[in-house]
């Protein structure tokens, strides 16, 4: 029985949605949302997402979180606060991700009430490499470990989670490695990339991509919060899209750029604040990444509602993007060819 759930990272969309879904569950007593900044919509009706979630503003990087956990008698902690791109600087992002997790886990380790911890991670921990197997399972040893950015943070976070699970074997600890999020409300480097009028790609490479729909993420986290499923799980929609296929579906134009120039473009885009392109992103755009989700499907007896392609289509539809114009061009050509 889950009494009180603490959700971190509720000022961001996916965290707020998870908190809202848990708040809508009558089996859960209280939902407490924490974050460094208040949810943007709390004053402007966006709070509807959060439902009856009680918001507490704390800086995750400080030991304040321990007070909340002990004072509110929290038994389940859902750690959604993993930032994928630097808001101000890379070092604050790292502090937020890694120091924040350390503080949270330190508080959980001390707590006598916490029984279950669910941590959001990312499939980026596997890296992207021509030397790696085509499909990663949870047990695959990463060949080229990511050395920077978000992926490195996630690896460190997972390391602390493993340490915590070892020291507190009585607490059910679940780590969710999420594929790239996709959906109408997702705002990530990748969704911004597809929203550009042209899509620079790495010449000669066509990576395999996988997406998970935001609705499915919310459902997986909700289930993990109310069920005991210890372990590490890959979370992704079924199937694979190639980058070239995504660009075509979006009706965008791919502009192949040689790999070194692509890195330079990425840096320019980063300094202009448009898109974050770390070396990991460049590797993903060259070699792609696919994960195996059999373990998750087995543990939850559930499959994501959206396949990779369906999640991407839903995203395109919400942005009003489609391949209508190229399709019309081909139709016009067929008209010419079949006219006698």
């Amino acid at each position, binding site marked *: 029985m889950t009494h009180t759930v603490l959700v971190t990272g509720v000022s961001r969309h996916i965290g707020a949605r998870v908190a809202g879904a848990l708040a809508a569950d009558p089996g859960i007593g209280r939902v407490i949302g924490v974050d460094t900044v208040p949810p943007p919509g709390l004053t402007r009706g966006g709070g509807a997402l959060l439902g009856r979630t009680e918001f507490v503003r704390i800086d995750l990087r400080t030991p304040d979180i321990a007070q909340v956990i002990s004072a509110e008698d929290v038994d389940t902690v859902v750690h959604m606060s993993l930032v994928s791109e630097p808001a101000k600087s890379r070092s604050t992002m790292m502090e937020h991700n890694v120091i924040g997790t350390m503080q949270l886990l330190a508080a959980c380790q001390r707590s006598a009430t916490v029984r279950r911890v669910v941590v959001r991670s990312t499939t980026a921990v596997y890296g992207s490499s021509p*030397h790696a197997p*085509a499909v990663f399972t949870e047990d695959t040893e990463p060949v080229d470990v990511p050395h920077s950015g978000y992926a490195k943070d996630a690896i460190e976070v997972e390391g602390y989670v493993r340490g915590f699970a070892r020291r507190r074997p009585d607490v059910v600890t679940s780590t969710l490695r999420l594929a790239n999020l996709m959906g109408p409300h997702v705002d990530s480097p990748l969704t911004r990339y597809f929203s550009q009028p042209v899509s620079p790609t790495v010449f*000669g490479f066509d990576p395999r991509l996988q997406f998970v729909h935001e609705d499915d993420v919310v459902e997986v986290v909700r289930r993990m919060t109310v069920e005991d499923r210890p372990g590490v799980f890959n979370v992704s929609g079924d199937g694979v899209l190639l980058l070239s296929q995504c660009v075509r*579906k979006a009706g965008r134009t791919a502009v192949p750029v040689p790999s070194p120039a692509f890195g330079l473009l990425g840096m320019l885009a980063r300094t202009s604040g448009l898109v974050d392109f770390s070396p990991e992103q460049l590797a993903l755009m060259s070699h792609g990444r696919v994960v195996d989700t059999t373990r998750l499907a087995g543990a939850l007896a559930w499959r994501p509602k959206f396949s990779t392609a369906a999640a991407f289509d839903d995203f395109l539809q919400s942005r009003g993007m489609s391949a209508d114009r*190229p399709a019309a061009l081909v139709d016009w050509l067929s008209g010419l*060819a*079949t006219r006698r």
Partner: protein
Amino acid sequence: MNAIFASDTPSEEGARIIPISAARGTPPPGPSDEADPTSPVDERIAELLALLRRRVVGDYEVDEFGFDPELNDKVLLELIRPIYRHWFRVETLGVENVPADSGALVVANHSGTLPVDALMMQVALHDEAHRAVRLLGADLVYQLPVLGHLSRKTGHTLASREDADRLLRKGELVGVFPEGFKGVGKPFSQRYKLQRFGRGGFVTSAVRAGTPIVPCAIVGAEEIYPKIGDFSTLARVLGLPYLPITPFFPWLGPLGLIPLPSKWLIEFGEPIRTDQYDPEDADDPMLVFNLTDQVREAIQQQLDALLLRRGPAFPPFF
């Protein structure tokens, strides 16, 4: 493809069953014949336009390895097939030894300086055995632009234990060249002499999956680029396993890259079963060595017999 689908799932209102031949380009018999006199040429154009439309809007599926069956069958194999038929005049034997729909591991000799033999084996298995072969390639391939991703799109993947196991578990036909660069880059004087078979990783994968090993001998690839020398220092600088000298390369420049039109034979031998072993036996090095030797012997014997059968490499000259 619609035609095949229609005959598979007859719907309630008695959907008209279109014979499969309609999909192969012959006009369907029946009322549509008189109403709409479509010639095979028109139909071919319509088919191509439909294909183009699907490609342009991204309406096709690739598997988790990046295999794009439509691009492979309709475009890439179409480009290689004339070379298979008319340049090398490949004859394929023993197709009945390739399982029709279950997992198997095809193990072949590797030669020819450039891995043209892999392409020809792919056409042979597609056209004669109607199977898409999933080859396991060197990681060098996957580091290179264009080549690596064309290789994924045609169904191949990195030679790694995980990928091999995964493909065999899915019941795919997996192909390996255990000689690797030692085989494909060996000098012309060593032709048709099998090199060492790596560490036998392919045997462990087959035993773990309990799938048969089909030995395959390819005769003809040795003569396409006779390697008589090697720029070994330059190759090392470029990070390549070798940089060949042939009678025509690099002397004739790009013309030297045209393969000589040798006569080819590809034979699939009797499958070697592995299902009598326990999957745990894959960790027994002695069993793995013995099976590796057995497969190697089988291929060498096949090669010798096939070589006699073919006679001169460039009939009718020499």
